[in-house]
């Protein structure tokens, strides 16, 4: 019976290195594992973008390490057009899935959410462990494509059929590389579904005494909403991937129409529809960008009150309802990716309206952040600088959305670098900035040490300016019609844009170099950073009501009671959620 009791009180602390740090069921270790995986992925993804940018602006520049990695893809360090597309595909895949989906949601969510709700662990710790390891296997499958003879697939992260479905007749990388890619994505789907289920049950079921939904920290709110979006979206990407795998391996024709001819050979498929693939993919794909950005909303909304020393305007309600509205609307706008795809032009108009209307809750969120600064006492620690940077980037990114949400303007800008600039601002760099904000903010809690402020600020300034230099320029060249996913610019009208290409490449190299300041800071501070107190920022939520780092069961067996909302700030004063003192901010 003793065994049953320990089980009821969650699992006992594990013994041995493997159980403690590798196959750990502790949500904190799993969170760190996710963060580590996404940091490694981010540097790989960034290296790929460097290689691409160098090739675009300086096509004759040799990159010896590429030649070593793939003698076929980059003979003597000069990449072939197909290898460029392979790198581009893997850049998108790694960044969208293993960095942007993994870090702000699974990484910080795993570490922080159970502590913020006052629980000892996730609802299903072993399921949680499987989430990470299935993600990791997915990552290995994706990474393995670099080491097979034909290299990674070249169909982009969207893997449009039939390019992705017909196999190696469509080009190098479309054989084994694309198969591994599909399996990798299917693994990622399964892992995300398990993670989303765990997040939802933990938030609903494991909250400590007094922690009503209205007192939930805003980061937990966002992860909770995000988990629902993930749960529904990845549940559709999974069958999309399975059907694609059936087309590739089982000889079916879900996405492959009849009469296709490659190398003068008629293909044996018939009756499938490439548009079906696009519908299934974008039914996932559009919510995916909100899966990426909602945790960023939450992290920033959570960090803001601490550094402006007052609650957000509108309290928890306005920002949370805006997030719920964004999450809900995200499921009815996927067709705006398909305006020029041959979908009915009437449907284009149908999809355009909710796409434009999703601006309203997004604008409300931005107004909440911006107008919360009014009358505030803003402190510019690195997490806050990154949060402010996020707001600026998100505004800029959102503006591009107006152009792409309308079929008429999109028909000119679709598939130009304008789109690339737009999504890098809205979901790419915005989410990365929020992730950095979260990283600098929670680092003391995770490792018990503080990161270096000076290096943190230097990292911020270089990143902030670098992002604008690269991605605004992409918008501008997009107006000139510069087409995305080109491995070289041979068209007459694109050659005059070369100075812009070189400017972007140099900016991207500097932007990337700045990230090594962060890497150094993160590793160095882990061992040499000054020891942090339990609550270095003077914050109020439960993760700051325990030691840094927290004990195995988060609160040393204490049962906490919550008395307040998460935003009890008034200048220097603040009231912990767990403190029975009177409210000072009326939340």
């Amino acid at each position: 019976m003793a065994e049953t009791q320990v089980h009821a009180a969650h699992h006992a602390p594990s013994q041995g290195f493997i159980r403690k740090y590798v196959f750990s069921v502790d949500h904190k270790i799993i969170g760190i594992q996710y963060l580590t995986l996404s940091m490694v992925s981010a540097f790989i993804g960034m290296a790929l973008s460097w290689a691409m940018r160098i090739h675009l602006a300086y096509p004759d520049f040799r990159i010896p390490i590429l030649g070593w990695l793939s003698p076929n893809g980059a003979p003597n360090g000069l990449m072939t057009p197909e290898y460029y597309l392979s790198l581009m595909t893997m850049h998108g895949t790694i960044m969208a899935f293993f960095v942007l989906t993994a870090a702000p949601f699974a990484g910080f969510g795993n570490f922080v959410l159970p502590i913020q709700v006052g629980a000892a662990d996730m609802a299903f710790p072993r399921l949680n462990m499987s989430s990470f390891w299935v993600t990791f296997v997915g990552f290995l499958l994706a990474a393995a494509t670099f080491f097979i003879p034909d290299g990674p697939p070249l169909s982009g992260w969207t893997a449009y059929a039939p390019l992705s479905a017909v196999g190696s007749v469509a080009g190098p990388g479309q054989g084994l590389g694309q198969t591994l890619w599909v399996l990798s994505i299917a693994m990622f789907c399964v892992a995300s579904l398990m993670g989303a289920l765990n997040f939802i049950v933990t938030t609903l079921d494991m909250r400590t005494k007094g922690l009503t939904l209205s007192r939930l920290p805003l980061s937990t709110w966002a992860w909770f909403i995000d988990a629902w979006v993930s749960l529904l979206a990845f549940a559709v990407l999974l069958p999309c991937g399975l059907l694609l795998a059936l087309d590739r391996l089982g000889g079916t024709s879900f996405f492959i129409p009849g009469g296709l001819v490659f190398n003068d050979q008629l293909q044996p498929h018939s009756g499938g529809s490439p548009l079906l693939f696009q519908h299934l993919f974008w039914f996932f794909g559009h919510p995916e960008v909100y899966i990426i950005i909602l945790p960023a909303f939450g992290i920033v909304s959570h960090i803001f009150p601490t550094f402006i020393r007052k609650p957000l305007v509108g309290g928890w309600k306005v920002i949370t309802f805006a997030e719920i509205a964004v999450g809900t609307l995200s499921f009815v706008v996927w067709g705006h990716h398909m305006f020029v795809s041959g979908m009915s032009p009437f449907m284009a108009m149908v999809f355009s309206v909710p796409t434009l209307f999703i601006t309203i809750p997004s604008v409300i969120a931005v107004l909440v952040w911006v107008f919360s600064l009014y009358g505030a006492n803003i402190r510019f620690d690195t997490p806050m600088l990154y949060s402010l940077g996020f707001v600026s980037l998100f505004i800029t990114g959102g503006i591009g959305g107006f152009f792409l949400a309308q079929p008429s303007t999109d028909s000119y800008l679709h598939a130009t670098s304008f789109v690339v600039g737009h999504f890098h601002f809205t979901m790419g760099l915005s989410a990365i900035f929020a992730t950095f904000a979260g990283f600098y903010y929670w680092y003391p809690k995770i490792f018990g040490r503080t990161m270096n402020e000076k290096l943190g600020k230097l990292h911020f300034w270089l990143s902030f300016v670098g992002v604008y230099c690269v991605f605004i320029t992409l918008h501008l060249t997009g107006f000139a019609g510069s087409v995305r996913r080109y491995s070289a610019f041979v068209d007459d009208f694109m050659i005059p844009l070369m100075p812009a290409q070189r400017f972007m490449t140099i900016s991207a190299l500097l932007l990337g170099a700045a990230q090594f300041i962060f890497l150094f800071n993160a590793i160095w501070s882990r061992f040499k950073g000054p020891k942090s107190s339990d609550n270095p920022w003077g914050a109020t939520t439960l993760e700051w009501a325990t030691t840094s780092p927290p004990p195995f069961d988060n609160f040393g067996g204490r049962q906490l009671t919550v008395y307040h909302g998460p935003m009890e700030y008034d200048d220097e004063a603040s009231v912990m959620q767990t403190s029975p003192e009177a409210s000072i901010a009326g939340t």
Partner: protein
Amino acid sequence: MAGKVFAVVVVLVTLVTAYCVVTHVWWMPVDISVHGPKIDHQIEETILVAGLLFIAGQIVLASFVFRYGGATGKPKQIPGGAKPLVIFAFVLVGTEVLALSFIGSKAWGAVYFEAPDPSSLRIDVQAGQFAYYFRYSGPDGKFGPLHPELINEGNQNYFGLDPDHDPDAKDDIVTAEIGIPVNKPILLTLHSKDVGHSFYVRELRVQQDFVPGLSIPVHFTAIQTGRYEIVCTQLCGLGHYNMKAYLSVLSQSDFDDWLKKQAAMQ
């Protein structure tokens, strides 16, 4: 200090961006189509609406950060709280997006909902990795049926025509460049023989995907002679960057001569 720097950087970035957009540092080429001005107008309209939001948003952000950075004393909320913000978002942004939807749908409708002129010159376009081919119906005004199994690049049978058995196919003219008469309505039918491709001519303000298995109509009228690039904008494989063709907009008599020459080369 950090706040003031942040505010200055944000304002600078905003001004530089606005300057580049307003002065058209890199910009759309001159429009040569009948429907194009509607799209250009919609883009300008959107630049105005979205640009104002962009500048206002960044400037307000910068000024609050500038003003309240490092402030001390009792913090206060904006008078009225969140209610005016929500009302602003619903009323002003709501009106803006409604207006954009309505005006934009007119521009879209002008391109897609107007039936092609019955007198249009019909041209078939076949896209494949990594080239476009064009087909004119010839004197009989009829296109021969397509037989994908006959497609053979070596024989230059790019469309899969069977002139020996299909009388309609006998006089079909297949070309690697597209010539069209100026001021004449054109109706293209897009087919792809392998994967997705796209037909993008910046000057025409036309972008339309080729979807394997579908025949997709596109119609337009060009009003200015010249030679323009058609480029592929849908990722189609390793030669994607190099997939292009030329569109020549010719006077009617030049077009007739050109087509005759093409017919002679069949």
